[in-house]
């Protein structure tokens, strides 16, 4: 079939029973050895676990003893074990790119049921692998230097942990936070489950460390606008919005805040329950300590006069002329820790949030419970004075509900129990928790659940149908009534209470998609960022050099967010220590002799890797900028551009190989006759 015949080894993996149960692996190796001998196959073996060290040694030994020049492994997806088998090929003494991994697990045995048809398809897949690998060329990996700086986007607990780990190891970190202060959602909470330690007490020291750290450049009130480059060599453009406060001069004394005459409702940090001034710090422990002026509510920006803050500032730090700054940084790696948005409980109209005054969402309750919050920690009704005598807490609001989000938000059971405990402790009220299932599956969580039950919190298993103020029975007047099914008793119940708390779920940031696109990563169907592997690589993403930490990857609690932040940092530190990294040599190159200078490819590249050389009237591709998509290769009418790793010859060989056998495994006549390579 090929003049320059290669000596190919074919290795069929059983993957325990994962492949062997659906595909006749013995038949595959027999068939490959006999029928593909013409195509260059000299060895064909099957083995229980090719990825085991014994399996890999088989390949290594055959390369040495049988003089193989190419290797095809039929096993799982290349996204799982391509690197494993290429490395084994390399140990055997061959160039690592002379090995192809073809998928007969994810794309055959796991998706098909008919053994004969699955075996037939596997044969075609193996033949296409054999034909393709014969066209492979030995390649050298590109090595790129890793810039020692790291960008951390998002200053919540996950981002803080990642930043501190890297900064403490002695490497520079640029932290970008959209809000005026770092701290994230955790800074809004009063107590944290299951230990009930105070959130501020454990978070503030870490925030201060970030603010003071000599290796951390902290940019709050800022956003990443652009990301260019690739792993090891990103250039990020950050917009540092004008605070109208000169950070060089400001001492953080807070006199401006005190003197500002304009009070506005704080929708962000206080969840709409408290006020802030037009010049403000979101909370007293804010890091950095510098306030910002909110131009939308500042009297000076509205009407051109006031300037009270400027008049009283002892260091002349107020600067109404300040402009946004556009800053640019070189970084080697990026951690995305942009967190979550709370589910908007008003979307579920039958729960009455936004319509019935004393229906609160969980974040509002966190602020009410917080000693530094709008009520100094007193749990009161919307009137600001009355303590509730009975409180209903509804779990799974917007979670595990196919009308809203079908996933479990992971933290609501535990925070609902925590709120039940806090409300009971502060008000002595009767507390009723309405839940679907109680999910308390981490260390000490179930003990906390038992403890809350012993305190006398009522737990009702059942979905709530409605929250209403329409009294139907005596004792319901003036109350809010929760109508729910009690599945333990098997009947409907109406529970009149003074206050209802909706345990809203977690959902991706409203702009998660946009941000993902900016950083070149992808979102799951639910909008959470996709990790490289759900179990074995939960911090990396498909885009080299971009890592995820915290709730941006999926709902999780504080310990898990911290662990993920630290894990991302560990991965990045390893790379920084190496100083360089090998990249897949999938790049496009122009064969100058064939280039007609037509310039059709010139506008195909979004990475500006293609330039036209006027003097020689040919096009050139910069390998450092080329990302290897291959669009220019497909566009070139003269075939002058080759795409390494995905060359015309390789893909055509693959197509021919796949078509060699029909659906039932019969030889298609077309390929019985020799085909000239295109």
């Amino acid at each position, binding site marked *: 079939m090929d003049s320059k015949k290669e000596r190919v080894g074919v290795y069929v993996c059983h993957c325990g029973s994962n492949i062997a149960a659906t595909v006749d692996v013995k038949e595959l190796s027999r068939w490959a050895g006999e029928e593909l001998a013409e195509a260059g196959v000299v060895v064909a073996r099957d083995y229980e676990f090719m990825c085991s060290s014994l399996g890999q040694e088989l390949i290594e030994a055959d390369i040495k003893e049988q003089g193989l020049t190419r290797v095809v492994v039929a096993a799982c*997806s*290349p*996204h799982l074990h391509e690197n494993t088998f290429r490395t084994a090929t390399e140990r055997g003494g061959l160039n690592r790119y002379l090995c192809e991994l073809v*998928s007969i*697990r*994810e*794309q*055959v045995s*796991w*998706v*098909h049921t*008919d053994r004969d*048809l*699955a075996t*037939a*398809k596997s044969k*075609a*897949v193996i033949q*296409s692998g054999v034909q393709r690998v014969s066209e492979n060329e030995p390649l050298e990996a590109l090595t790129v230097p890793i810039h020692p700086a790291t960008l951390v986007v998002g200053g919540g607990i996950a981002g803080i942990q990642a930043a501190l780990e890297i900064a403490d190891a002695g490497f520079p970190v640029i932290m970008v936070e959209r809000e005026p202060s770092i701290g994230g959602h955790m800074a809004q909470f009063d107590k944290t489950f299951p230990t009930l330690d105070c959130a501020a007490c454990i978070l503030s020291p870490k925030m201060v460390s970030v603010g003071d750290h000599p290796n951390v450049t902290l940019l709050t009130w800022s956003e990443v606008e652009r990301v260019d480059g690739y792993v090891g060599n990103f250039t990020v453009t950050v917009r540092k919005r004008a605070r109208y406060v000169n950070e060089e001069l400001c001492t953080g004394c807070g006199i401006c805040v005190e003197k500002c005459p304009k009070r506005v409702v704080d929708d962000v940090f206080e969840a709409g329950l408290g006020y802030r001034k037009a010049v403000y710090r979101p909370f007293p422990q804010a890091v950095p300590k510098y306030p910002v002026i909110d131009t939308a509510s500042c009297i000076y920006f509205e009407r051109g006069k006031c300037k009270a803050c400027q008049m009283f500032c002892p260091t002349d730090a107020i600067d109404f002329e300040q402009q946004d700054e556009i800053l640019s940084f070189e970084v080697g790696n990026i951690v995305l820790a942009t967190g979550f948005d709370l589910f908007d409980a008003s979307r579920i109209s039958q729960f009455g949030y936004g319509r019935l005054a004393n229906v609160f969402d969980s974040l509002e309750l966190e602020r009410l419970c917080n000693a530094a919050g709008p009520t100094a920690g007193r749990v009161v009704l919307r009137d600001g004075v009355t303590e509730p005598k009975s409180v209903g807490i509804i779990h799974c609001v917007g979670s595990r509900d196919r009308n809203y989000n079908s996933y479990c938000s992971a933290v609501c059971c535990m925070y609902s129990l925590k709120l039940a405990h806090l409300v009971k402790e502060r008000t002595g009220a009767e507390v009723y928790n309405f839940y679907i299932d109680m999910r308390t599956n981490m260390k000490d969580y179930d003990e906390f659940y038992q403890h809350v039950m012993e305190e006398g919190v009522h737990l009702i298993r059942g979905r709530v149908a409605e929250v209403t103020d329409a009294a139907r029975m005596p004792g319901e007047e003036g109350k809010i009534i929760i109508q729910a099914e009690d599945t333990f008793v098997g009947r409907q119940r109406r529970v009149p209470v003074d206050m209802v708390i909706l345990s809203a779920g977690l959902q991706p940031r409203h702009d998660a998609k946009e941000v993902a*696109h900016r950083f*070149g990563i*992808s*979102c799951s*169907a639910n909008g959470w960022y*996709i990790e490289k592997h759900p179990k074995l690589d939960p911090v990396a993403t*498909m*885009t080299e050099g971009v890592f995820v930490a915290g709730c941006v990857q999926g709902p999780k609690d504080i310990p898990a967010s911290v662990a993920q932040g630290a894990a991302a940092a560990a991965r990045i530190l390893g790379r920084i220590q190496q100083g360089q990294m090998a990249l897949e040599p*999938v790049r496009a190159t122009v064969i100058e002799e064939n280039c007609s200078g037509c310039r059709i490819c010139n506008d*195909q590249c*979004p*990475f500006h890797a293609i330039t036209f050389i006027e003097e020689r009237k040919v096009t050139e591709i910069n390998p450092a900028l080329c*990302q*290897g*998509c*291959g*669009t220019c290769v*497909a*566009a070139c009418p003269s075939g002058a551009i080759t*795409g390494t*790793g*995905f060359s*015309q010859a390789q*893909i*055509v060989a*693959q*197509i*021919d190989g*796949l*078509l060699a056998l*029909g*659906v*039932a495994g019969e030889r*298609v*006549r*077309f*390929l019985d*006759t020799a*085909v*000239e390579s*295109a």
Partner: protein
Amino acid sequence: MTQPFEPLIIGFTCNWCSYRAADMAGMSRLKYPPNVRLIRLMCSGRLDPEFIVRAFAGGADGVLVSGCHPGECHYLEQNFKALRRFMLLRLTLAQFGIEPQRLKLLWASAAEGVRFARECTAFVEQLRALGPLDWPGMVAERNGHHAVSQALPAEEVQA
């Protein structure tokens, strides 16, 4: 033909989205007919129209082209270039007597294993209804040759 017709389909997938969607379908143990055989490209932008013609010429009854959703291309905007080529090629193939239904475009993100499996199944059903293409046979017949190799439109493809 007494036996039901089983179409052969070549699917070109993008390394970043649809190939992973196919992997996801596997990991979720979703089922689709084994008529679809996949080739991984780095991007749908790499899809040279020649590959599609080659697949039809080689005996494929249908070709699936899949990439990232518009606006979600791993390489920013290359799937739009694939879309342009796809539209043009479908017109051209129609002029060669290949029904437009034999060429399917599918946007599937890495998370859309369910969608991938469902669309593959639907495409197989569609082609079963449409019947075999047998382009190599058609060409051979028209040229009055029995040796298919001579009838293979390799030169035409290149032109």
